[in-house]
Each structure stands twice: as C-alpha cells, then as structure tokens.
C-alpha cells in the first residue's frame, strides 16, 4: 500500500514501515533501548533522506519508550528518582548537542561525524558488553553464582560528594556521575538522533552499578523525555519530522515493544546482554563499511549557503 510522506516528499510502502517499526520495537522492548540506532540506519537504507530519518526516528522512540515504560512500571522496574536526575543532565547535554549539530552541519561534516560516532561508540560498547556477558555466561555454566554488583565493592565513583539514596535501585551514590552520564548521553543523542539507550544501559550497569531489573525501565523513562525534547527541537530547527512516517513506525513499534518486553523477561540477563552486544556490533560494522567505501558520487549539492 503506497502512502505519501508529506515531509520526506516521497511515496513509500506502508507495510514495509509497519514491519520495520515492529521489528525495532521488539528489540527495543527486549533490551530497553529506544531503537534509534537501528531505526535511523534502516530508514536511510529505505531511501528516506537522512535528516528526516534522524528527526522522525526520535519521534518514534517517544512512542516505543512510553509503551515500554508502561510495561516495566508494572514490574516496579522504573526508578523515577534516578531517571529524573539522569534527565536533568540529559536536557543540558542535549542542548549543547544541538549547538554542535548545527555547527557540524554548517561546515559540512555532520554525516561524517555521525558515522564516526556511531562506529566508535557502538564498537566500544558492543565489544565490552560481549566480553562481559560471555564471561558471565561461562561462569553461570560452570556453576559459579554471578553478581554484577558485589556488596562492599566500591570504585572511584563512590568517593564523590553529594551522595543521594536511590531506593528503588538500592544505590547510595553521588549525583555528579549520574548527571554527567545523563549529560554525555543527551549530547550524543542530539548529535546522533538517538535516545541514547544503547550507551545509557551499559553505563548504568557497569558505571553506576544499577541493578539490571531497574536499568531498562529507568533508561526508557529517561529516553521518553530526551526523545520528546529532540523531536520538538528538530521540528523547530530543521523541520524534518515527518508525522506520517512517525505514526506508521509507531504503530508497528508499540506492538513490537510489548512482545519484546515479554520475550526479554524469558531470557537470562547475560544472554540478553550478549545479544544486544552482537546487534550493536553488527550495526557498527555496517556503518564502518560505508565510511571506507567510495561514494557513488563524490560531489553533492545542498540547498542554502552555509
């Protein structure tokens, strides 16, 4: 069924987009990532202009994150206090990111920086997660009980001031690293057009040592706001949010997210993390490939004078 996208200005097959939304929504619900790092490249492969793909992806993430949070809320898997502190950092970071975004676009290096950021971040995060989860898996098979968070184990983060108690996460840590993590992710989110879940989830697990059962819900909670903010900023600054495209992706995405969250509960933590790691690495390799392959046309033209 052909449907015309008013902002992207082209006709697409509605079922392809529904399917794309459903697939990404499933992974999103399962792993607690917004899915932006998947939906944006997928849309670009489907010939949607990159600017529209980035901005519309953010809009779709709002819907799938809301749907996901509602299901995690039921399992008491959302730490609102932690989420709010992350969010405060996130909005600051995102505002800085928007400024960097427009500067890079002005000098014509936006696409390159986005691709490099994806490759480097996805590569590092994917590799670290894969290594950790395979190790945990082995230990679990050998019968050794594994605890991600060993009691009494403290790293440098626990020596920072301004400590706050996060009851749901059973954490007593300084707000400084939490705000910084939020800000860093907000900044990347604005530049890369993603919610940042794929970095936030590992950062919360490994850096802040938040228990796995609240990580996903809390990450999604924070992503709702960052993605909503990004959507509005993109709509105002670049006018590239396509509401028809977004709604199609959302309809598929929210259905997928519920099944994904359900499937995620059946899987063990380390399996889940290993699968997410492989997915992240696959996207990183795909993007690295495009960086090194000669483009079809080395000349491009863009409207407007920088």
């Amino acid at each position, binding site marked *: 069924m052909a449907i015309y996208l*008013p902002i992207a200005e082209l006709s697409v097959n509605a079922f392809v987009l529904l399917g794309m939304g459903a697939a990404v929504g499933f992974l999103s619900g399962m792993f607690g990532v917004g899915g932006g790092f998947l939906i944006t490249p997928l849309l670009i492969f489907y010939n949607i202009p990159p600017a529209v793909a980035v901005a519309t992806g953010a809009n779709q993430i709002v*819907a799938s994150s*809301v749907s996901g949070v509602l299901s995690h809320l*039921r399992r008491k898997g959302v730490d609102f206090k932690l989420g709010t502190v992350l969010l405060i950092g996130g909005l600051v970071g995102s505002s800085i990111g928007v400024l960097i975004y427009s500067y890079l676009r002005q000098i*014509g290096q936006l696409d390159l920086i986005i691709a490099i950021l994806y490759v480097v971040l996805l590569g590092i995060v994917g590799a670290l997660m894969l290594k950790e989860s395979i190790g945990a898996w082995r230990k679990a098979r050998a019968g050794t009980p594994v605890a991600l968070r060993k009691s009494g184990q403290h790293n440098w983060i626990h020596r920072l001031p301004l400590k706050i108690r996060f009851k749901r996460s059973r954490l007593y840590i300084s707000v400084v690293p939490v705000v910084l993590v939020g800000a860093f992710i907000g900044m990347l989110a604005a530049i890369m057009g993603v919610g940042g879940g794929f970095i936030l989830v590992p950062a919360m697990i490994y850096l802040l040592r938040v228990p796995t059962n609240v990580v996903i819900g809390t990450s999604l909670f924070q992503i709702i706001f960052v993605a909503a903010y990004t959507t509005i900023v993109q709509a*105002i600054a670049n006018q590239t949010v396509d509401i028809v495209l977004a709604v199609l992706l959302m309809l598929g995405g*929210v259905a997928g997210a519920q099944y994904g969250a359900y499937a995620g509960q059946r899987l063990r933590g380390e399996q889940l993390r290993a699968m997410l790691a492989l997915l992240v690495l696959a996207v990183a390799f795909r993007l690295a490939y495009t960086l090194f392959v000669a483009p079809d046309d080395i000349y491009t033209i863009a409207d*407007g*004078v920088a």
Partner: protein
Amino acid sequence: MMLLLRALMVGFVVFFAGAAAAQDDDAERIEIGLSTDVIEITSNFAGEALTIFGSVDNADPLIQRQGRYDIAVVLSGPVDDLTARRKGRVLGVWMNVDDLELPNVPLSYLITSTRFVRDMAERATIERLSLDIPTVKLTRDEEIQAEHDEFLDEVKRIKIDESLYRSFPGGVQFISQSLFKARLELPANVPLGQHVARAYLFKQGTLVAQTRATLNIRKAGLEFAVFQFSREQSATYGLLCVLAALIVGWLGRVIFRRD
C-alpha cells in the same frame, strides 16, 4: 490532460487578442499563454508534460512556409543558494574536503525549441540567452567561474542527472501558420515556487522577438497542508508529533499487552 486543455483555451484567447492588436505594426511578435499562473502538484506527482501554447504575430508567410522561423522556450525555476561539496579520501575515510558556495542558482532549467538550438542561431546569441544547457551559467561571478570550473561542471552534471536541467530539441511545433505549442517535461522533483517562461522568436537565425510569463508551481492537497503546517507552526507541529507518540505508545500498551 487538464493542464493541456486549460492551456489550449487561454492560448487561443491570447492568439486572437494578439492578432487584433497587430495591425498597426508589421514587425513579428511572439506571445505565449499559460493556462493558469499556478500549477498545483499533488502527492502522487511523478512528473508531467507541460504544454505552453503561443502565437507568432505578423509572421511573413513566405518565411513561415520555408520553415525559417525558430522558437525556443525556456522554463527556468526559482533561484536559490547552493552549497556544492566534494568528497575525498582522508586516512582511508571518505569525507567532504572541499566546498563551493553558489548564490542564486536556478534550481531547474528546461529548454524546448523547434530544432537543435545550435542550428537556430549564432553561438554568441545562444550563449547570451543561455539557450543550451552547456551555456547556462551557474554564477555571474567571473572569479568563481575561472577558479572553480570543475566544481561548476559537476554541479551542472548533478542537475542534469536529476532531470532538472534538460533540453527538448524539437519540443516546439507550429500547429498552424501562427500558432505553436511548446512541450517539456516537468520532472517529479520539480522545484516549488515561481518559474519564469521566456520565449524567443528567431527569423533566419536572428532574434526578432521575445516575451515572458510566470508560473507558480506549488503543492496541493492534505499532504501539502501538513507540509505547510510543519513550516509555519513548527513548534505546535513538534508538540503534536510528541502528543501523537504519547497516545500511540499508551494505546499500544493497552492493546498489545502481553503480561
């Protein structure tokens, strides 16, 4: 088809009006009639043939019979600033390494003529009037032209590849002694905005008359209303997008709940 019919009707009106006024002056004149000064393209627009009708007044019947009148019609699109960029390899990675800013470039340039323009007039005339794609100048700045001719050629090549710069030799035909029709293809990606149609009449290789008309091309329909809303009320539009996402997200949970 509607376009063509409407164009035809107005074409005749112009023709008769022109004929009536032409009695006190024996120099040739050229008139073109656009059916409407606005073309609305809908969401399924995949390019369309545009026919412009026109008339030549006071044509010398002998020269006309010998086929020595020639007509060229140019439909040039709205002008806008362009930035052209060139990618190069840096440490193995392809990135933009050079750019050129071009102010006021016609976004489209469509030429239709009775014959190949090089057979119609002197080279200098063709260049002055930009009647052949290779003679179209992307900038009037001679410094840019001298220093960046490679860049300019590539920009023009991209425009040609996108069917935005194109010529249609043989697209203009006389349908009577004095009436002619000029056909050209509007590409699917035709730029929106004010287009200018210019018509030139050549008699035995000499430019004897010219005229112009404007044409506004814009989007129509619901999709266009959405497009315009996103441009004019962008903050409200963004908020609506987020609201839609919140509602769909909540509905998705209610409908597809699995636990």
